[in-house]
């Protein structure tokens, strides 16, 4: 089955006339996704690869003749909040925010508004999500034929803070004959719309998903939140983790920030070493190399390697 997307999912692209959006729109259409409109204020009447452009989300909804399921937002950081508020308040329930460098306060406001309106945000600073051979929302996997190489349908759900690593991990699973049920690039910012723990119930309820792989980095408390969630809930899915950035624990590296480091003040439990220990203690093996992931998954599934 998969989570969040189906063959019927419809979505718009906000900021569709921008350089990255034009590209991503082409890719999603080629993948078979139902991109039903685009919004760039002031550009109503244009078309991007055949997709009609509107000034407002409301116009897009009216043109569609009914509620639109999702939106991929590529609008620059100073305007992203306004665009996402517009999407939420026009009934859109799944919003993928590609934009990076949005001030944290704006992100928190978007997330709170989404919460109040039964909407879900993926991102920001993410590449979107994909259900192989069903739907792609965002630039994840690249052009359709490249996405097909890396993403084949299968039983593993993938969640990653890094967009590129979502594809790298999924590719290794595909190459090993395991495939992906849904892969989600959850975003690299300190505050994101959907954390591992928040997506787990969706994966748990999905018949197709039999195991989970997460890509993670030092900084933040998302892994601790995941461990707590599993302890408190009837969690069945085995999880395999990969952690990058172990070199950041070294003394010479102290005080520097790398990658998506979005550290939040809440104790010194955020180093790579401590996170790995916590995950392992909770029964979530942390592999050292990406290419070890398929074997670890097969092990958990009781399948021959």
């Amino acid at each position, binding site marked *: 089955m998969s989570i969040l997307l189906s063959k019927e999912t419809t979505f718009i692209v906000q900021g569709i006339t921008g350089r990255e959006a034009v590209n991503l729109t082409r890719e999603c259409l080629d993948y078979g996704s139902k991109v039903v409109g685009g919004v760039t204020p002031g550009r109503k009447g244009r078309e991007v690869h055949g997709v009609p452009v509107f000034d407002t989300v409301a116009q897009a909804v009216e043109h569609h003749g009914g509620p639109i399921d999702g939106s991929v937002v590529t609008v620059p950081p100073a305007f992203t909040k306004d665009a996402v508020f517009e999407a939420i308040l026009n009934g859109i329930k799944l919003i993928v925010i590609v934009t990076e460098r949005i001030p944290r306060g704006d992100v928190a406001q978007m997330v709170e508004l989404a919460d109040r309106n039964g909407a879900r945000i993926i991102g920001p600073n993410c590449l979107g999500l994909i259900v192989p051979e069903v739907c792609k929302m965002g630039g994840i996997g*690249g052009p359709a034929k490249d996405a097909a190489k890396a993403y084949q349908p299968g039983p593993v759900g993938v969640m990653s803070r890094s967009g*590129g690593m979502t*594809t790298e991990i999924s590719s*290794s699973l595909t*190459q090993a004959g395991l495939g992906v049920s849904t892969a989600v690039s959850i975003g690299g910012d300190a*505050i994101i719309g959907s954390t591992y723990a928040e997506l787990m119930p969706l994966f748990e309820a999905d018949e197709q998903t039999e195991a989970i792989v997460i*890509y993670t980095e030092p900084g933040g408390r998302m892994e601790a939140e995941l461990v707590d969630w599993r302890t408190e809930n009837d969690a069945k899915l085995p999880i395999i983790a990969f952690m990058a950035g172990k*070199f950041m624990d070294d003394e010479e590296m102290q005080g520097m920030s790398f990658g998506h480091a979005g550290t*939040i003040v809440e104790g010194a439990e955020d180093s790579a070493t401590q996170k790995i220990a916590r995950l392992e203690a909770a029964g979530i093996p942390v592999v050292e190399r990406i*290419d070890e992931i398929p074997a670890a998954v097969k092990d958990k599934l009781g399948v021959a390697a």
Partner: protein
Amino acid sequence: MRFFEYEARKIVELAGIPVTKYGFCTTPEQARQAAEEIGGPVVIKSQVLTGGRMKAGGVKFADTPDEAAEHAEAILKLEINGHMPRGVLVDPKAEVKQEYYAGVVWDGTAKRPLMLFSDMGGIDIEEVARTHPDHVGRGHVSNLFPIPDFEAKQTIAATGVTGSQLNRATPVLARLARLFRENDMTLAEINPLAELTDGSFVALDAHMEMEEEAVGRQKKLLRTELQIAEDDTREPYEHSAFEEHVAAIDAADHRGVIQGKDHGFTGNLGLVIGAGGGSLTLTDAVRSQGGKPANYSEIGGNPSVAKACGLAKEVLEKDGVEKIAVMMSIVSNTRVDIVARGVIKACLELEKDPGETIAIFRIPGAWEDEGFRILERYGVEYCDRSVSLWEAAGRAVAKVQGTPEGAAA
């Protein structure tokens, strides 16, 4: 972005939180005058962006203006943890009845600002939370709605504080929470928040940090109120020439993003790698297999040939670099052929043989077939997605060390 204590004081003052009558001074003479104006015993505090001031002798008490000038002179020349002070803060020595803690931080799990309050101020709040949890009150505030005073009141009341102290502390915490939101802070702390013998509450010390991404939209506070220059970025450490050059190349052209860091790296294998997660993974993989990176880098987005070339050249020109490894996780929108052109061009411009200099090229993804043609023409060893990040890193290490492949640390 970090703030000095004297700036943090100004920030809380602007938010309507009572502060003492203090003076920020950059000369002993100014310190004397400030002490005279205050008229009483004072404390002279070094203004540095590091802790441990007390221990290092950066905080001194003075009973007279002359003494104040004397201490100021000494402290202005005192280096603390590698930092020289911007100036000194001259504060009246307060008659403190009790010290409290008031702070606001981000709670990433709840995705809201979190107010913290304790009636055990003056010490490390994390320690208090550990040893005396019932003396720490916590309360989240909304991101969307105005922050009502009562939410602060509830947080404070949870510690058992009542009476006039509750009523005086409430607006302080509420205003701190509002300033946290309005000024895009990632940390806003007043420790200690002092109750003086006359019953008034003042912020005796304040600590603020603002989110980097928000600096551009806080011009009024930063440039007008605090008069902080645009190039005054307060980085935790000084950038090397390599880092600055790479930043300049990145800024010159909006196509794609490059970043380079070399603080703490002293190796012979230059890394031209990406993207964010890929760079971390590859750096780990190189080190775990006995390699010695000369630097860290990140290539993101869809850089121009000039940008990729610029980064590769900077890496190649670092002392001790013998070869470079060009590796990325599978790319969706970075063009493999463009990066290939860039790194080869860097070698050619430095009169190096690309085949000899590039230990391995591993970037699977968009336009890879075209990229492979270019690499073949110049004799560069490359591999496709069937070779993992780990393996590619291993090959690069083996090449530069001249050892057989697969030698793990």
